[in-house]
């Protein structure tokens, strides 16, 4: 951890005002989609973010790419606040930070051909000198990405291509701008299992080639462990555990992570482990607390857990959790 982090998230929060019950209850309430998150990503590092649905993973991704404005806190890239970056030069910021969305079928406007879709950002960012040059670059990249023949793909409309093809194009398009940081928001969760590996490998190869920092959002622990350097586990808008991928998976500290991993199907049928079940639904992120957010469902919860939110506790130099009961 001697290097300065490339992307650093500092106390970022996103609260959405809650509109219900206004007539009866005048107290202003917030849905805390993200609450006081601190993370950092080095150049070339892949950070996996896991958690169940609705825990704020995608919101975090949107905050980092500034598609949403954080309520509090900031995200620094190379030590400069993204707020400043986007104010000073929107295009330069958009070039350096890219996002790949979950749903490839809705990532492209249905009225344009792939050619128009790929050429527009290139023209906006003044990459390539002439239309011919840009076209050539696109076809080259498409064919490198296994979309052959590129010439033919360029003429298609998005609805004429498969999800896997579209997601490849989405990755290719993001990579055309040579970004330094990519948020991949569950890029394969809507694809067939058969093409997932190819898409992920393609993303990782490109990221490695350009030394890009990647935030990989997923709910698939096995996959995340396989590809990431570090893993952050989120629960109800908070990061509850962070550490090296193997450390987190082999030696989970937080009871929520323990439960998640114990329920994850293993390839090895002889692998013996105790299954921990958590009961109940996750509570709403509507003004949670004051205690640990996970306490109501936690199998280790004690009285103290319900009173205050636990502090960060280091398990090792590279591994921390927020739990009272950690040994």
């Amino acid at each position: 951890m001697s290097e300065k982090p490339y992307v650093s998230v500092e106390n970022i929060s996103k609260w959405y005002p809650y509109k219900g019950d206004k007539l009866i209850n005048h107290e202003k309430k917030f849905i805390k989609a993200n609450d006081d998150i601190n993370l950092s990503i080095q150049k070339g590092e892949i950070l996996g973010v896991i958690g169940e649905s609705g825990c704020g993973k995608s919101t975090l991704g949107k905050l980092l790419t500034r598609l949403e404005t954080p309520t509090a806190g900031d995200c620094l890239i190379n030590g400069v606040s993204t707020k400043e970056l986007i104010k000073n030069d929107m295009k330069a910021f958009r070039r350096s930070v890219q996002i790949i969305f979950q749903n490839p079928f809705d990532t492209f406007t249905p009225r344009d051909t792939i050619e128009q879709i790929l050429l527009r950002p290139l023209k906006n960012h003044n990459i390539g000198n002439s239309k011919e040059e840009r076209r050539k670059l696109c076809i080259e990249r498409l064919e490198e990405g296994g979309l052959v023949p590129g010439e033919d793909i360029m003429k298609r409309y998005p609805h004429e291509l498969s999800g896997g093809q579209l997601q490849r194009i989405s990755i290719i398009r993001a990579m055309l701008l040579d970004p330094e940081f990519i948020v991949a928001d569950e890029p394969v969760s809507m694809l067939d299992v058969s093409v997932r590996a190819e898409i992920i490998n393609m993303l990782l190869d490109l990221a490695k080639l350009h030394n890009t920092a990647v935030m990989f959002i997923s709910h698939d622990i096995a996959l995340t462990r396989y590809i990431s350097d570090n893993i952050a586990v989120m629960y109800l808008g908070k990061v509850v555990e962070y550490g090296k991928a193997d450390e987190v998976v082999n030696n989970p500290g937080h009871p929520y992570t323990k439960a998640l991993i114990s329920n994850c199907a293993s390839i090895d049928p002889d692998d013996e482990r105790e299954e921990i079940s958590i009961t109940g639904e996750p509570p709403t992120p509507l003004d949670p607390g004051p205690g640990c957010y996970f306490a109501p469902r936690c199998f280790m919860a004690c009285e103290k857990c319900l009173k205050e939110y636990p502090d960060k506790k280091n398990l090792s130099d590279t591994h921390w959790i927020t739990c009272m009961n950690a040994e």
Partner: protein
Amino acid sequence: MKNNRLTIAAQAVKSNRQLMAGCIGVLALLVLMIAAPLISTEDPTIYGPDVLNGLGENGHILGTNHLGQDVYSMIIYGVRTSVKVAVISAMISGILGVLIGGAAGFLGGKVDVIISEIINVFMMLPTFFLILLIVALFGNSLTNVMIVIGITTWPGNAKLMRAQALSLRERVFVKSAEAMGETKRQILFKYIIPNGIFPVIANTTLGMANAILTEAGLSFLGLGDPSIISWGQMIYAGKQYITSAWWICAFSGIAIIIAVLIFYMLGDGLNKVMDPRYNKRRA
């Protein structure tokens, strides 16, 4: 690809009888517009010697009016006026509605609140009396009439476009365009408007029918442009002879009904075909 879109359009037209009738009707109106000098028997602006001739008298198929103009030729040339009013005023209303509504829905926040209030104010105005007032104040040229119809009917289109923009701006492709560094203007014109314009097109076509009626109504009240030939004015001029020369009013009235029906069928047919539930219901 162009070919593909054409076949889709052809299929849509075939699938709905109303739309097909509307399309054929509009084609017929266009032919009448272009070929009016060939189809008509006389120049309708000439005041001939045959005054108030009946049907078929002296070669006047639909008779003549009190100034000796040939009613059949007047009706043929009247198509030009009506279609011009319909198309231009609907275009004004459509363009204003799309731009204002699209901007309101896409930009949101305070811009949306202010524009929505303006739309509401315009919707509450009694349109026809406003038109009367403006024509009375600024003179009754056809251009004025078209502009006034345009700027009093845009709020309906703006509301439709705003609703479309509100839902489109949450779509992933708009977010991804934003992430690719496209400006707000590019997003509005390349993503929001092309993807949300269909209901507005259908509504604008319906608006054409109303524009024809409004122009006819104004002419009937004597506020039309006196230097052109229009069906509304034919009725206005013919109404005092209705007992002795009924054909002046009757045939121009029928012409108005047919033109309005054509545009109405086209608009309603488009509305139905573009409704996403339409294809499911048929399948």
